[in-house]
Each structure stands twice: as structure tokens, then as C-alpha cells.
């Protein structure tokens, strides 16, 4: 209820502010109401739930995730988010946070990762991943994005991500770069970060996961990319598929040095 009320208030303040600030940068408006709600980002509810889920014994093996290695060693959560996606020797893959959580949920807790990957956003164990992502990213809040590029696979994924970013296709000839390739553009009133470089603290890669006011729930980077591809009029990107991870590497390496504010509050 509190959540609904808050979302309602946000919407009202957006509409009210909308007319007056139409010609002002949309980011200014968003920054304004983000400030208004500094102590009340609904993402906090997900963070609290995520912290509980990390410790809770769950799944067929009735285990917690406390031994999950997010890249800095088993159980180390603080600082892990700003270094993902990265190479993991045990899976022999570059993984982002969501795909890594799938690995841990399967190996430690006995869940079926493929089943979870096929589940719709906001449902079942996908909701678990959303809450965990909120808490894990929040544990690196204020830290600078610093993805490692020491492993050859990390560098290869950057190159593949770059190619995916500029890949034009579909009935409307769109690529990621159509909207996110240069500075200072908007779709409608929505400012579009230039993701080919560091777009600044808390912008673009450094803002997701985020609580989306317009949909009233928490979006991971996987979901953000999924909806980008929907609007790009592409086929459906698999959850935690290689293209989504490669794009994460490309955006994350470009954003090196940007301060993470995830989970942020979004329109």
C-alpha cells in the first residue's frame, strides 16, 4: 500500500511538474523528484527483501546464497556489483549479476537455472533475482564502476558487445546506437545517455537496477535491455543470453569511473 501511494505521489508530481518543465531537461525534473524522495525510493523495499533472501535457506537443497561468489570471493557482496560483468573460472564464462545469480541458485540451492531464465519478469524466482539485484547493487552504492578487463574473454566480450551495440536490424533499422550513440538527445522528453563513453555519475549503466515509477516495479539491467530490444523491434533476447552480457561489458567498461547510484529511481 505504501508502495502504491508512493508511486501515485511520484506520478502526480511528475504530471504537475510536466507542463512547466517541458522545455527544461527531463533529467532536471527527474533529479528534482528523486531528491524529494531521497529517503523513500521504493527500491528500498526490494533491497530489504534481497538481503533476507541472500541469507535464507531455500530451494531443493535448502541452502542459502551466503557462499555465492560474485567475483570477489564466496560471500563477498560489497563492491562486487561495480565489477560485473566479469570472467568466472568455475563456469568458464563472462557473467553479469543476473546470470551469476542463476549459477549460484542452481549450484548452491538446486534450482533449475534454465527454468528461471524462461520465467517472465516479476514472477516466481525472477522476482527473487530482482530483489537480490537491488540489495547487491545497493551494497556498492557510491562506488565507481570498474569492470576488470584482464582476462582475454573479458576483452573479447567487450568487442562483441561493441558490435552488438552498433548492429542495425529489424523493420525500423534501429541499433542501440540510434538512441545512445551521441550526446544530448531525447526520445520525447526522455534524455538518452551516450553509452559509447562514460555518460557521468549515476547515469546509464551506473543507474541500473532501478525502480521504475511508470511500471511500479524494480528493473534489473537484464530487464532494461530486454525492453530496449522490444522498442528496437528486434526478436526476443534470452534472459542472461550472451548478447545481453556482452552489452553489459561494453557499457560497463565505457562507464569506468562513473559513480554507481543503483538501485536508482526512474521515470
Amino acid at each position, binding site marked *: 500500500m505504501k508502495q502504491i501511494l508512493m508511486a501515485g505521489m511520484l506520478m502526480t508530481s511528475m504530471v504537475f511538474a510536466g*507542463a512547466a518543465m*517541458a*522545455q527544461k531537461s527531463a533529467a532536471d525534473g527527474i533529479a528534482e523528484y528523486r531528491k524529494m524522495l531521497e529517503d523513500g525510493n521504493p527500491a528500498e523495499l526490494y533491497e530489504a527483501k534481497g538481503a533476507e533472501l541472500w541469507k535464507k535457506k531455500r530451494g531443493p537443497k535448502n541452502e542459502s546464497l551466503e557462499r555465492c561468489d560474485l567475483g570477489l570471493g564466496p560471500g563477498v557482496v560489497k563492491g562486487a556489483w561495480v565489477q560485473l560483468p566479469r570472467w568466472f573460472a568455475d563456469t568458464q564464462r563472462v557473467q553479469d549479476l543476473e546470470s551469476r545469480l542463476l549459477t549460484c541458485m542452481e549450484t548452491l540451492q538446486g534450482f533449475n537455472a534454465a527454468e528461471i531464465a524462461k520465467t517472465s519478469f516479476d514472477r516466481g524466482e525472477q522476482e527473487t533475482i530482482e530483489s537480490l539485484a537491488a540489495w547487491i547493487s545497493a551494497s556498492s552504492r557510491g562506488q565507481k564502476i570498474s569492470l576488470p578487463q584482464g582476462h*582475454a*574473454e573479458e*576483452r*573479447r566480450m567487450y*568487442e*562483441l558487445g*561493441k*558490435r*552488438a551495440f*552498433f*548492429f*542495425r*536490424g*529489424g*523493420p*525500423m*533499422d*534501429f*541499433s542501440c*546506437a*540510434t*538512441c545512445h*550513440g551521441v550526446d*544530448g*538527445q*531525447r*526520445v*520525447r*522528453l*526522455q534524455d*538518452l545517455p551516450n553509452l*559509447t563513453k562514460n555518460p557521468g555519475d549515476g547515469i546509464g549503466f551506473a543507474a541500473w537496477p532501478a525502480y521504475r515509477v511508470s511500471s511500479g516495479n524494480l528493473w534489473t539491467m537484464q530487464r532494461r535491455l530486454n525492453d530496449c*530490444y*522490444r*522498442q528496437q*523491434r*528486434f*526478436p*526476443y*533476447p*534470452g534472459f542472461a*543470453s*550472451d*548478447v*545481453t552480457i*556482452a552489452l553489459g561489458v561494453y557499457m560497463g567498461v565505457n562507464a569506468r569511473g562513473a559513480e554507481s547510484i543503483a538501485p536508482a529511481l526512474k521515470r
Partner: protein
Amino acid sequence: MQHKHLIVGAVSAVAVLVAAGCAGMPSSDDLDREAMAMLKSSFTERGIAKMDRLEQDIGQKACSSATPPPEAMAKRIEAEALATIKYPSDGKYIGQWQDGEKLAQNGRGMSWSDASAQPSANGGSCYNCHQISKQELSYGTIGPSLYNYGKLRGVKDLNDAASNPIVKYTWAKIWNSKAFAACSNMPRFGHRQLLDEEQIRDVMALLLDPKSPVNQ
């Protein structure tokens, strides 16, 4: 003899160094192929969004990197695009600006969450990227402002033959934008059957009709 051995030794030392420097990084061509394979294995069809959407035509392919294609390629793409343009069979270019405004506002269509890929299910998405009428404040800036589009180009009377060139150009730009800029960000509304002739006529009216709010 000894001299020859030295040379061979030096060459292989260089080869080792080159190999070490490139360890793990495939060539640019290999990466292109790997990227394509990655896309094919990462996506699946859903609803109207089939896998053929990843099959690029020559223009999409040439405009898929941070650097624009060479001049000759750009010219070829533009010439081929120009040849695709179908002008209205009955010579009627202008519809209702009121309907054009609705299409300009409507950003729906062609995604996996849309039921039909027919033009009738699609909007023009124009305001996503362009300023058009002065009344709509929520417009994008990826494309140039189209406010006063007809007025600025001297269109006072659509029946006047003097208006013909700009009318025909505008139709062609909407039909296949790549005829005038190989890597234009604008969709090819006629060529890719995103809008039908009737819908394009209405968008034409929004831009060119002296009575349209765009030209006040």
C-alpha cells in the same frame, strides 16, 4: 650459414612476440562472425518479431559500426534506396492533417508485444524524434525540428505546381529515408511497409498543408 640461422631465429622471435601480444583476441573479421553467431544464439522469435529481423540488408550492414561507410558504398545505398520509392499511383499526395497528427503521436507498432504487423496497427512515432507542431511539448531531438516544415519551404498552395518538388521529396523521404542519407536514423516507412499510402498521405498533410498547425 650461421647468418641465415640468425635471421630465422630473429623472425621466429618476432612471431612469438606477435602471437603473445594478440593472445586470446581474434581478428576483427573473426569477431564480426562471432558477434553474428552470438546474436543468432541469443535471440528467439516472439510473436510478430521473427528471427529474419536479424538478417541485414546491405545498408543496415554498412551502417553497423561507429564509422560511416566509405563514400562509394554510401552512394550505392542511396541509389538503391531511391529506386525503391513508389509514388502514389493516383497522384494524390496529401490527406488529412488531423489523422497525420494522430499517427505522429502514436509510437506503437512492430514490437513483439504488438499483435499485428499490418500498417493499420502502426503509428508513425514522429514525435519520438522530431518537434512537429508547437502545441506538443513532449518531442524528441534525434531528428531535426519539423515545425513550420511546409511554411519554411514556401508551400502556400498545394495545388500550385511550384509546390511539386518539395511535395515529391517529402513523400520520398518518408517512403525511404536512406535515399538521401545512407545511414539515416529514420525508419523507411513505405519501403518496409510500416505505413501504407493512405497513412503517408495523412503525415504529408500534417507537414505540408498550409492549414496544418505545423505551418501556423
